[in-house]
């Protein structure tokens, strides 16, 4: 029997939490146990009943409370995500999951910094949990640095606090340090030796520059446009040091050493 890594599954939406004007947290039950889902991996979510969406939408796995449950954090940006955010508890959503390569979890103890911007905070929650689960860390040794436009867009803070020390920036200064994540003093006051980041590309590039200056290993999660999400269409490529690589199968998580940034 062929061992399946990913599945096409009908998931039941158990709860939908409206975290802010633009963010919803969707809590799903899977039809069966799926083991081995990892932080940084994503689901290809089918959007049913929207007029102009044809392709599935890639959404990061935000959290896996148990092998039969997943959380997705969705930012409403267009028709597909709007449709998702409008669903009622009890709705069935078809997904292909888990897909892609995850963040790496070093088996030696490091000083990790997890930087999330906007909806890019999603995979960081699961990553924090996974780091904690190695037994190598306590809450004080995992640092989250989360950035958003303003206070209302900083979501899931109480969840993040379960797995680490949380630092925030907002562009309007309504919460935490005013400015971008890369302006947060923790980057200068504390030393890290592992950086993970997900968010808008300019933010990730700034984080990557910081990591490069400090000679820290840095992993980023790319959000290239995808059609299939499974390595078949070659639409999602990133121009890397090894040529065009599919971000859906070789990524979405890449070590910045492999990127041309």
């Amino acid at each position: 029997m062929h061992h399946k890594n990913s599945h096409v599954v009908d998931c039941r939406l158990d709860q939908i939490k409206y975290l802010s004007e633009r963010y919803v947290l969707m809590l799903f039950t899977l039809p069966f146990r799926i083991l081995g889902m990892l932080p940084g991996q994503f689901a290809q979510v089918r959007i049913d009943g929207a007029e102009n969406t044809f392709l599935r939408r890639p959404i990061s796995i935000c959290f896996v409370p148990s092998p039969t449950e997943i959380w997705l954090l969705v930012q409403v940006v267009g028709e597909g995500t709007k449709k998702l955010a409008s669903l009622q508890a009890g709705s069935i959503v078809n997904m292909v999951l888990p897909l892609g390569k995850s963040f790496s979890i070093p088996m030696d103890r490091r000083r990790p910094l997890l930087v999330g911007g906007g909806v890019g905070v999603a995979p960081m929650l699961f990553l924090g949990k996974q780091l904690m689960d190695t037994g190598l860390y306590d809450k004080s040794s995992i640092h989250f640095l989360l950035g958003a436009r303003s206070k209302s867009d900083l979501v899931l803070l109480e969840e993040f606090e379960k797995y680490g020390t949380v630092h925030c920036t907002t562009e309007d200064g309504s919460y935490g340090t005013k400015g971008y994540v890369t302006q947060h003093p923790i980057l200068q006051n504390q030393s890290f030796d592992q950086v993970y980041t997900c968010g808008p590309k300019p933010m990730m590039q700034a984080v990557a520059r910081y990591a490069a200056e400090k000679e820290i290993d840095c992993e980023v999660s790319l959000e290239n446009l995808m059609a299939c999400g499974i390595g078949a269409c070659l639409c999602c490529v990133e121009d890397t040091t090894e040529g065009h690589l599919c971000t859906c199968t070789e990524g979405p998580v890449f070590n910045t050493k492999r990127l041309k940034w």
Partner: protein
Amino acid sequence: MVNQEVNLGGLRLSNPVMSASGTFGFGEEFQDYLNFERIGGIVVKGTTLLPRQGNPYPRMAETPSGMLNAVGLQNKGVDYFVQHIYPRIKQYPTALLVNVSGSTVEDYAETARRIQDLEHIPGIELNISCPNVKEGGMAFGTSAAGAEAVVKAVRKVYHKHLMVKLSPNVTDITEIARAAEAAGADSVSLINTLLGMSIDAEKRKPHLSTITGGLSGPCVKPIALRMVWQTSKAVRIPIVGLGGISSATDAVEFLLAGASAVQVGTMNFIEPGIIETIADGLVAYCERHKVARISDLTGALEVVGSSPLSCETK
């Protein structure tokens, strides 16, 4: 029991539902999603003589009921395929065809020659129609003389099943189909993608790095169906129909229009198990309509009276 086998001019398929090139990888990408014994055939990614990087990102734009792509034949070249990929996929329980592309007649012929001796590859699909390659591709597919030249050259060196994939970006596809037939093609497959364009009005920029790209998906189905029907009136060799197939009903429509087999492309991206679903759906259709052999559906369209509107089938 419905007989699902089809015979494409000597190439036998266990059922008529194949995967379309560039939409099913090398098959490997889909192992989690369907039973390969239910796939009539796999046409693997477009392969060229030398490796190609393809076009710059972005290469894709979604459209209502479809998408535009500008992948530009990214592949590692035929030698890499022969050495590294073929050994991994040769045992698949389905017919494996390699989709061959090139910029010159010599490229096509040489690529075909290097695939010739692969025991588990019973045929090639000659892509004379990809719109994403600046230097050539399309030129062969848009003139009868060009099509004839490249098919002839490949026919000389390639002795297994030679399927020729036609471009819809022409005034009269039957002319190209006839040229391919005359030059020795064993079958024709149609359609490849339609040249299209998409613009981001907010940014006043094209969505694709190449400005234009190939349109595929359910939105192209009526055009594809019309072209299959026209071509079936123009050539004697078997036709493989594709373009926007998303259900068994769609597949039946192509068979009725004159196709002997079908390929499923873009819909694999949305439902990675769809080929099996369609293959099963074809059987169910035949049972419902008391059709003994799926191949009995080929060309079984019942047309009463009037002739089609402005159709130059000559």
